[in-house]
């Protein structure tokens, strides 16, 4: 007979959201879009281009977070 698994061990892992992690996520999105644009199939080019401009905007926008 096996011992029952304690309920605490089944708790989902919660990643803490921090400003640095959000900035890394934007950077990762930029890398993904750039990879899709440079090496992806032709059908991916237009959405990747749109995504790149959105990410460029998000980079500039999130950098303003220190504004009063």
């Amino acid at each position: 007979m096996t011992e029952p698994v304690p309920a605490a061990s089944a708790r989902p892992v919660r990643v803490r959201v921090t400003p640095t992690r959000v900035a890394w996520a934007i950077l990762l999105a930029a890398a993904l879009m750039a990879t899709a644009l440079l090496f992806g199939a032709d059908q991916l080019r237009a959405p990747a281009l749109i995504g790149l401009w959105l990410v460029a905007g998000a980079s500039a926008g999130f950098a303003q977070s220190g504004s009063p």
Partner: protein
Amino acid sequence: MLTGTLVGVFGGLLAATGAADFRRALMLAAVAVITTSSLLGRPLQLPQKKRLVGQDIIARGNLGGPFQFGVEMGSGVRTYLPSPLAHGLAVMVALTGDPFVGILAGAGFGLGRWLLPAGGEWSGDYERWETTLLEKIRGVERLCAVGLIAVAAVLFIG
């Protein structure tokens, strides 16, 4: 998005003036200087309004007040820009001379600004989020500068 569209139209008009190679080189140099200054932790002080939109505007009417607040802050009529990356983005949009690109970049800029309150909500502790942000703002700006440099490199050089 409004500013982005206007910058895109301005870039289109600029493209009609000729000297494309020289203009392109000059604008790319401007983007490089702006992003590098952020990367080095010494952001350039570029022209901006340095005025806040009054909170009382929001209380004026159900829709008109918040709309005016958003337009004034989003278009830079009254806002603070602690990072010059917004100027770098504007130069990149002007370089394309495409209003549609301006709309996309403007929507992305709004998304980036929205991530500040949204991230605070997601973190579950807004006060801690704000404290961390103020401590790490230079690092955050550096990462954002790397993102913008990567996008510029892929779009204009790659």
